[in-house]
Every structure is written in structure tokens, then in C-alpha cells.
């Protein structure tokens, strides 16, 4: 028996088929976690965001129309939740805040990496949200520019401009790594 397409599974999910949902979720869990983790800079947030995204998929499945690819629709949900969560950061007085939080991934992961990998992660983490998302969608998820643009809600040319700007910034920040090699 061949692998069911995402869209076929979504039609079953729309009918309330939990088994179809449990077959579809593992296909995107890891990639979506990676996308959310690198976008928010937090493992815990990424886990919550992707869980919320999956629950939204389940709840809204009866309203889903197979006009757009499931993957694009799902990543759009994840991206929007990431942005909303970043906007909802609670306000604390400056005295309590102490040092500004490092947007790079958690300490455990950082220790495991070598220095240059840390610097690359940090350079990506310091990019503006949309530029970072453009880099992640292109290199992590290997999406086409058209799909990635749809996820970010911009035109293809605007997406390409984001990507060019992001790469230019990364080239400047990672100049010493590029020169080493």
C-alpha cells in the first residue's frame, strides 16, 4: 500500500479520523520543531508552538480546503504562532530583567556544538524574524521560493529580497568563518 498524501489524510482528518491525524503529525513534527526552535530560540517554546499548531490543524480540519498544499498551510500556522508568541512577551522592569536574553538555542545544545557552530547559530538568531524565517525555510525545509513566500505572506520577489538581505548580513557576520575555509 502506497503512502497516503497529506491532502488525502487531511480529508480523513476533516471527517474526524484520529488515526489519520496520528499518521500525519510525525511527518512534520521534527521539521516544524526545528523551524520554531530556531525562530524563537527556545526548545520549550518550540514544543508548545508546534503542539498548538497540530491542535489547530485538528480543530480546523473540517474547514480546510485542498486548494493549497498542506505543508504550506501548516508552516504558515507555525510561523504565525511564533510571531504572536514573540509579540506577547511579558513586560518586566529593566532592573529585574538583568542581562538581555540570548536568542540563540538552549545551553545544553550550545555546549554540544563547537565554537563556529555557535557563532553561526547566534548570527542566524540575531536576524530579524522574517529574514530568519526566510533562511530557515530555504535551508532547513528546502521549500521553493513560491511556497516560502506564501508561508510568510509576501510576494515571491519580496521573499527573494528578504533572503538576499539575510544572506548579506550573515556573510558579514560570519566573515571570519568564511575566510578560514
Amino acid at each position, binding site marked *: 500500500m502506497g503512502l497516503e498524501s497529506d491532502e488525502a489524510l487531511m480529508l480523513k482528518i*476533516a471527517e*474526524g479520523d*484520529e488515526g489519520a*491525524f*496520528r499518521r500525519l*503529525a*510525525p511527518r512534520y*513534527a*521534527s*521539521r*516544524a*520543531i*526545528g523551524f520554531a*526552535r*530556531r525562530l524563537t530560540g527556545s*526548545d520549550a517554546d*518550540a*514544543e508548545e508552538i*508546534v*503542539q498548538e499548531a*497540530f*491542535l489547530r490543524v*485538528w*480543530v*480546523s*480540519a*473540517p*474547514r480546510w480546503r485542498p486548494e493549497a498544499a498542506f505543508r504550506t498551510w501548516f508552516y504558515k500556522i507555525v510561523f504565525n504562532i511564533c510571531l504572536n508568541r514573540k509579540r506577547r512577551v511579558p513586560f518586566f522592569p529593566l532592573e529585574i530583567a538583568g542581562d538581555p536574553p540570548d536568542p540563540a*538555542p538552549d545551553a545544553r*545544545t550550545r555546549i554540544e*556544538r563547537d565554537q563556529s*557552530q555557535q557563532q*553561526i*547559530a547566534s548570527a*542566524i538568531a540575531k536576524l530579524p524574524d522574517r529574514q530568519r524565517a526566510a*533562511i*530557515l525555510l530555504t*535551508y*532547513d525545509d528546502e521549500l521553493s521560493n513560491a511556497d516560502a513566500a506564501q508561508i510568510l505572506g509576501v510576494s515571491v520577489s519580496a521573499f527573494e529580497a528578504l533572503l538576499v538581505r539575510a*544572506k548579506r548580513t*550573515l*556573510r558579514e557576520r*560570519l566573515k571570519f*568563518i*568564511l575566510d578560514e*575555509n
Partner: protein
Amino acid sequence: MNRIDEILAQHIKMERSADDAIATRLLVSLTAKPLPAQRHTLLRNWPTVLLNFDFAPAWPRIATLASAGFVGCMVGFFSPGAQIFEKPRTTSVQMADADPGYLVFEPEPLTGVRP
């Protein structure tokens, strides 16, 4: 492939093991909890409602009589010879003047002499 492209792709691939571990944990927690109720659109079931609706009349004889009466009325109203919706044809006489004698005793066209 550009050098920066290589570095970025390689860096992201190296982080995937951490993603997999979190994803496994997430999938376990998704399986453990019951899923919430789905949100359906209001018009989702209307074709089923129409298909399930019993259009057969409760009293077949009365329904047959009413249908036959309805068909009869339609034939009567709209058949080719029917005149029910046509305006009645009336002849109207317009009087040129208030004096009716003027019409009766029309003057001679050439001489203008009245008979």
C-alpha cells in the same frame, strides 16, 4: 553552491538530532491526551438534511387532487386561447367638441354649408 549556502545547510543539518528528540516527546504527549472537538462549518450538513427530508405527502389522495387542480389552473390561465390576463377590448369615441350636433351635422368640405 555558494560557500555561505554550504555553511548554512551544514549547520542546520547538524541540529536535526535535537529537533527529533523534541518531536518524539511532542508526539507522545499528543497521543496521550484526548483531542479537542473539531470546529465544523454551519452549512456543512445541508446536503444531507435535504437528502434525508421526506418530501412524500402525508395524504396522497389530497396531494393528488391538489396537484391536479393546480395543473388545471395553470392550463386554464396560460393556454393559447386564454384571455384572463388580457385587457378587455373597448371602443372609445372621442368627441372633438362639446357639441354632439357638430359631429352629426358635419359641414360641407368645399362650401362650408351645413346640411
